[in-house]
């Protein structure tokens, strides 16, 4: 019980700190002191206090879309195993629910953006749809392959299995973590897929979809996208943390993995340029290519071919 409470608290507290940490790492690379780690929290509180401007061309969809997106991401967060490999909710085949509840949130974000009638936002929505559809098959191949290996069907079960040792398992988990890291960059809208700080509408993906949002809606959109990064980082963290650990130790290593991920993302953002828009699908296709390798390793293992 206490583990679940801690996980729920982490799910609420960590997202904005994670973003703050990434920004801090990025500014350190640039030789600046940079904003405090708490800055996103302050931005969020500031936005929550503000009023909201809603365009007269938009309908009720524009008003409900951010809330639905936020709700769907919280639901996804409840299913994902966090510290100690424990998730708050767990049921059979919940990873399919996870993928589709995220997709539902994205669907509402997309139609919310199209509802404003702005051509820029429509363009961003179209890009978001294309990139998400490239990510999804790879995610399913990775998760399903790990499921085949251990004959389990819940997220918790998958992550427990992944804690084991053995060279093959390590290989699969390393490749899986690499694949999910690309997914983290896509879903979190980070460099090299998307640049969260860009100011040119033509090159934005996620930022351009929320140009019309302001006030509390903008605040929860910001919070939701940060939470999405925490969710995917949690999957990666549970892949690399061994399962047989006391909860305290496991919690500490979970936070350490998250810290390392934030440093890696910040570093990538500081030293790599954003990819040209036409090269992004190719980058995302690496996920599918790697997951084909994972799948074949698992098929060969199950049929006794790996010697």
């Amino acid at each position, binding site marked *: 019980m206490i583990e679940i409470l801690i996980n729920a608290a982490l799910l609420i507290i960590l997202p904005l700190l994670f973003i703050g940490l990434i920004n801090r790492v990025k500014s350190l690379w640039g030789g600046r002191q940079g904003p405090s780690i708490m800055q996103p929290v302050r931005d969020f509180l500031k936005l929550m206090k503000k009023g909201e401007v809603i365009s007269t061309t938009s309908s009720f969809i524009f008003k409900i879309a951010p809330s639905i997106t936020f709700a769907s991401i919280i639901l996804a967060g409840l299913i994902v195993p966090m510290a100690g490999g424990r998730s708050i909710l767990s049921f059979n085949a919940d990873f399919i629910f996870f993928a589709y509840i995220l997709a539902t949130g994205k669907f509402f974000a997309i139609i919310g953006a199209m509802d404003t009638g702005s051509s820029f936002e429509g363009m961003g929505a179209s890009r978001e749809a294309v990139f998400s559809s490239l990510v999804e098959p790879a995610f399913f191949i990775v998760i399903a392959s790990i499921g085949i290996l251990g004959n389990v069907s819940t997220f918790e079960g998958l992550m427990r299995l992944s804690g084991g040792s053995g060279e093959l398992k390590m290989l699969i988990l390393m490749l899986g973590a690499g694949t999910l890291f690309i997914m983290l960059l896509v879903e979190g809208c980070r460099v090299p897929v998307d640049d969260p700080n860009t100011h040119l509408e033509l090159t934005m993906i996620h930022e351009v979809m929320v140009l019309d949002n302001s006030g509390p809606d903008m605040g929860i959109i910001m919070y939701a996208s940060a939470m999405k990064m925490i969710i995917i980082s949690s999957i990666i963290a549970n892949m690399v943390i061994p399962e047989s650990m006391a909860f305290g130790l496991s919690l500490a290593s979970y936070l350490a993995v998250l810290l390392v991920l934030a440093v890696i993302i910040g570093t990538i953002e500081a030293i790599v340029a954003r990819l040209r828009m036409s090269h992004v699908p190719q980058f995302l*296709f690496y996920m599918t290519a*790697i997951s084909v390798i994972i799948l*074949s*390793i698992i098929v*060969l293992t199950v049929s006794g*071919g*790996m010697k």
Partner: protein
Amino acid sequence: MINFIIIVFGLTMLYISSTIRIEGYIKALSIQGFLLFFLVLLDYDTIILPNLIFLSFETLAVKAIALPLFLIYIIRKNGIFREVEPSVTSMSSLIITSLIFAAGFYISYWSIDAVSNIRPFYFGISISTIVAGIFIIISRKKIITHVMGYMMLENGNFLMALSIVKEMPFIVALGVLLDIFIAIYLLGLFVNKVQDEYSEIHIDTLSKLKD
């Protein structure tokens, strides 16, 4: 450890299939050379000593260091930095290479029951590397990329020999080395001498050659 090296080898092939920078090709080739060297070392107990020395020399000195350095010298001297107009876009090239890998793994899956003295995972990656090397030769237009595609094909051959008999017969290895040497030599000759006539090192210009 062996499986890890082989997977990295496969990943270099995926990288090669999607990049358009010639230096990227050369770096990936050099990495492949090092990986083959480590594979040879890891199999040291089954290989006789003179052969082991020769194979180490071939992979480390020739494939991983000498040839990449020479290729870099050629491209820097001639200012060839990227594949300007590949006949297949890099996205489709990546998709096709993934399909080649899937097919290679299918063959290795089939080989589990059909052949006894084989290491299926090795075999799948090596078949895929050979086919992907041929695909690179077909789809790229610069002569220098053709030679590099040929070198990848040879790396795949090498890997396949390791997967079946755990070593390549000495004379075959020598022959392959000679082939690569001739290819590189001709490439150098072509790039350095014929270059005066044709500013672009491009296979399309070869169709206009006459006495």
